[in-house]
């Protein structure tokens, strides 16, 4: 302990807490903290959208429940894909932490493939709906807001997934070439898991609560 540190401690009544400065109080890199903060605010943006959706839905007498088994199953599969991609992501981070770059990159590619699959399934469904005449401004059941909220919410989530795919691609490439350290992979992982997490709310609120019974 340097003399500095000693009289420093003296000034602090003997002990140095994790908040005393000279390092992160969380024992994590700033990048990770930064991503966490971004996630908090993005989570609030999504919450605001979900609240808006619930607001207009509760203030509407009859909200359509058009989703038959087919689309529910489709959405369930999408959910499974996303959940699985989260697992591959975890494995990617593991590999990166162990310093096995090629394997890490491999898992990252697997993860982003999951994202791509999700997007493809999602878009297929969207176009299916378009053909049924379901659009942001109208639909056969006469509650335009149904389409508005559906495409608004899923659209914004899809954007996040797509951004995530690009992001992961960059990171995978950089990792393979040894440009990035494991923290970069971990931070990308945080983002990806968050996108997964958001879907855990959109899926029941948008699909299951609008599923046609029987």
């Amino acid at each position: 302990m340097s003399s500095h540190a000693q009289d420093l401690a003296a000034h602090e009544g003997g002990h140095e807490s994790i908040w005393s400065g000279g390092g992160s109080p969380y024992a994590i890199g700033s990048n990770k903290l930064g991503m966490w903060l971004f996630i908090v605010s993005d989570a609030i943006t999504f919450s605001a959208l979900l609240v808006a959706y619930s607001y207009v839905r509760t203030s509407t007498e009859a909200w359509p429940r058009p989703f038959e088994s087919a689309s529910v199953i489709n959405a369930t599969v999408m959910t499974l894909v996303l959940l699985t991609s989260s697992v591959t992501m975890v494995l990617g981070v593991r590999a990166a932490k162990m310093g096995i770059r090629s394997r890490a990159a491999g898992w990252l590619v697997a993860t982003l493939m999951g994202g791509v699959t999700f997007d493809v399934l999602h878009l297929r469904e969207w176009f299916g709906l378009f053909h049924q005449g379901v659009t942001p401004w109208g639909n056969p059941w006469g509650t335009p807001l149904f389409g508005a909220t559906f495409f608004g919410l899923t659209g914004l989530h899809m954007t996040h997934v797509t951004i995530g795919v690009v992001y992961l691609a960059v990171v995978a490439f950089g990792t393979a070439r040894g440009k990035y350290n494991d923290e970069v992979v971990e931070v990308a992982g945080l983002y990806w898991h968050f996108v997964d997490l958001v879907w855990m709310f959109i899926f029941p609120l948008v699909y299951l609560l609008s599923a046609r019974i029987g």
Partner: protein
Amino acid sequence: MNATMEHAHNEISKKVTFTVWFSLLGLTGVEVFLAYAQLELKLMLTLLMGLSLIKASLIIAYFMHLRYERRSLILTLMPALLFVVGMLFVVFPDSLRILVMKVH
């Protein structure tokens, strides 16, 4: 910032990863099942949201690794998030009022 290594030892193990994964899949299954079990909307909403919250916390705790970080981080992030999201719910008394005040 070199502290990143500090918690390398309490890394999330493969076993845990897959247990979490399976429970998430399981919970999803339950949700889908609920959607078809002719429940009344409010009850279903509560159940579904309850399950989703559990899923979310599983993802945050294990996949996003928060369970293994210092408590200080959790205490920095979660209260703010929950508080703001909680406040957003104050808009609902209105949405219910609107139903009766709508022009017919």
